[in-house]
């Protein structure tokens, strides 16, 4: 047998001693199992080596906002059935993620929500009527995104992932220690902009936390049709981004993991990817029929892992939450819903001429013409009404 250079090269791996350089993926891969600090009944698990339990005050606030958030979600669903909202994508069952996501942030940080983050936004302190503006059929996002440091709720899937990278890099470029948190669902991780966003954030070391709420379905399409990856968190290694999986119905674990992810980003280590395993208890929106793609037994199994009950049980067992406090939180949530109901009971006043505002900083001559045309049409319609 002649020894060609090719043969030598082929043979060398077998003869070479075991590699001594560390695996470059070391520290990037998520743990094989989601981080969990409470079992599904609310019983604490042994202390986690990497994720200490957040302080009791934070957990009390987490509970309070989750209770209010759920009551908000129920109210918004009811308002949709009453015709007050054009559509409402519920996040019931995802309270730990919705509230934990914003509780891990400072007010100066930025949130990049999707259309399913209404609960997160009210939890961030934005007026619920403003949050529901778009869903009740008005043309704008309702709140002031610059003042609230919260981007408009994003409907085109995953596109906000790139905005978060740019915003976070821009803030760092200007010497500010802002972190951006981008919410995204399991289905949207298939979109190119998820890949481009996390890749840009990694290459530019932008302080972004990508927070995937894996609620198992993209409308009707199950996770198995989105990915063949071991988990969505495993996608991080391909970008050089550390990641973690968390039990998304364990509020304490969600807050602990996100707190660490935010700290990682703020410290200048670049982005972090978190996948929360959770479940959307309601259909995609009021217009969806979830019985066509998932069975009742599956939904019931997730009902047993309810995040609000789980946290309440734990806090009561620990003596952090007592009966009167729980009752007071429930009462606050009822008042919150009653106020929302009352203020959503009238249709908002919309001015057709406002359609021409903010298309450009100053309208083009063509828009000035069109605005005048619409104004004349409206005036003529009013005159006809007056004549009738």
């Amino acid at each position, binding site marked *: 047998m002649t020894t060609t250079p090719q043969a030598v090269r082929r043979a060398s791996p077998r003869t070479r001693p075991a590699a001594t350089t560390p695996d470059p993926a070391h520290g990037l891969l998520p743990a094989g199992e989601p981080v969990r600090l409470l079992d599904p009944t609310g019983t604490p698990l042994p202390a986690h080596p990497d994720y200490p339990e957040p302080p009791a005050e934070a957990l009390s606030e987490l509970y309070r906002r989750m209770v209010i958030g759920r009551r908000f979600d129920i109210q918004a669903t009811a308002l949709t059935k009453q015709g007050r909202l054009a559509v409402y994508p519920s996040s019931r069952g995802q309270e730990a993620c919705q509230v934990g996501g914003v509780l891990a942030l400072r007010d100066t940080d930025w949130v990049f929500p999707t259309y399913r983050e209404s609960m997160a936004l009210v939890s961030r302190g934005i007026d619920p009527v403003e949050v529901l503006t778009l869903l009740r059929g008005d043309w*704008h996002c309702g709140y002031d995104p610059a003042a609230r440091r919260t981007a408009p709720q994003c409907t085109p899937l995953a596109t906000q992932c790139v905005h978060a990278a740019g915003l976070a890099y821009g803030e760092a470029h200007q010497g500010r220690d802002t972190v951006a948190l981008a919410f995204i669902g399991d289905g949207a991780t298939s979109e190119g902009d998820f890949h481009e966003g996390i890749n840009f954030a990694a290459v530019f070391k932008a302080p972004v936390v990508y927070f995937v709420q894996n609620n198992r379905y993209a409308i009707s399409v199950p996770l198995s049709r989105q990915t063949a990856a071991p988990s969505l968190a495993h996608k991080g290694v391909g970008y050089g981004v550390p990641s973690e999986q968390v039990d998304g119905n364990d509020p304490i674990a969600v807050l602990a993991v996100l707190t660490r992810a935010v700290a990682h980003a703020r410290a200048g280590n670049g982005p972090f990817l978190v996948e929360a395993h959770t479940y959307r208890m309601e259909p995609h929106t009021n217009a969806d029929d979830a019985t066509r793609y998932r069975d009742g037994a599956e939904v019931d199994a997730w009902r047993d892992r309810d995040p609000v009950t789980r946290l309440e049980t734990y806090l009561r067992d620990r003596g952090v939450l007592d009966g009167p406090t729980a009752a007071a939180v429930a009462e606050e949530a009822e008042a919150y819903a009653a106020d929302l109901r009352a203020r959503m009971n009238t249709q908002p006043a919309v001015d057709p001429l406002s359609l021409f505002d903010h298309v450009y900083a100053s309208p083009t001559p063509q828009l000035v013409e069109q605005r005048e045309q619409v104004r004349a049409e409206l005036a003529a319609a009013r005159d006809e009404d007056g004549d009738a």
Partner: protein
Amino acid sequence: MATTTMAKALNAALADAMADDERVLVFGEDAGQLGGVFRITDGLQARFGDTRCFDTPLAEAGIVGFAVGLAMSGLRPVVEMQFDAFAYPAFEQIASHVAKLRNRTRGALSVPIVIRVPYAGGIGGVEHHCDSSEAYYAHTPGLKVITPATVGDAYSLLREAIADPDPVVFMEPKKLYFSSAEASLPARTEPFGRAVVRRPGRDATLVAYGPAVPVALEAAEAAREEGWDLEVVDVRTIVPFDDATVAASVRRTGRCVVVQEAQGFAGVGAEIAARVQERCFHALHAPVLRVSGLDIPYPAPMLEHTHLPGVDRVLDAVARLQWDDQPDPRWLAEGSAA
């Protein structure tokens, strides 16, 4: 006054904008070290550092989306799409976010970014390198769409684009990059929203933009031999469009041919022709005609001359402007066939 090229004028505009405003960042594929494949960003990284002029991953949606986020943080990004057809992956970001963010937020957020697109053909480029994509952007409310045809405009309009509070798609005619002209920079020409009469004439108006402007000027020169005195209007800013200057010219001349390099169907030239006839019907002695590229995918280098509207095609159209006040016989034939 020194002679310079459009490429150098664009480079000078970027450099001067970066020197004047530290919020201006310039980035894209090969925009950093290399200075861009057309060298429009040449020397900017060396002068301003790699945090102000830099390369990005090869991902156009990422580049534009990243710019949206940077603008939200208060910066002024200028991004380069390497070629016209390479910008298509960014279209969702452009149409759904760049164009709409001001509107969706009632002005609380704006996207003062410039998307530079080297466009159109005539350079012997292989497939996907020569598209005229301006109609896609012009059809999207919220965007300004600008295309210079002169060295002075290249500088001045790019400076204005960078300073503008709205997103600007800045279409750079590749075949004019290395055309030179006398220009003293920094030049300041007419602002956004103003078309310019490049050549006055009495008999008919040629309305053109971008790479079609030199063709129209050449055709006007050649038309003198036929006895026609043609006016040439350079649109310059497709959005916002200057109806007033175009209509005033056509009312003076009574005849109009719209010239564009892009394929014709549903294009910018169709919009211009419609606007002219809506405003000038009673001043017109002949239908408004369009001269454009063919409605085919941009052809290979060996065939692109067949596609590109040249002087002859423009003059043929001018000849059909009913100079003897007789209708075009081809329309009579179509009418009798119907």
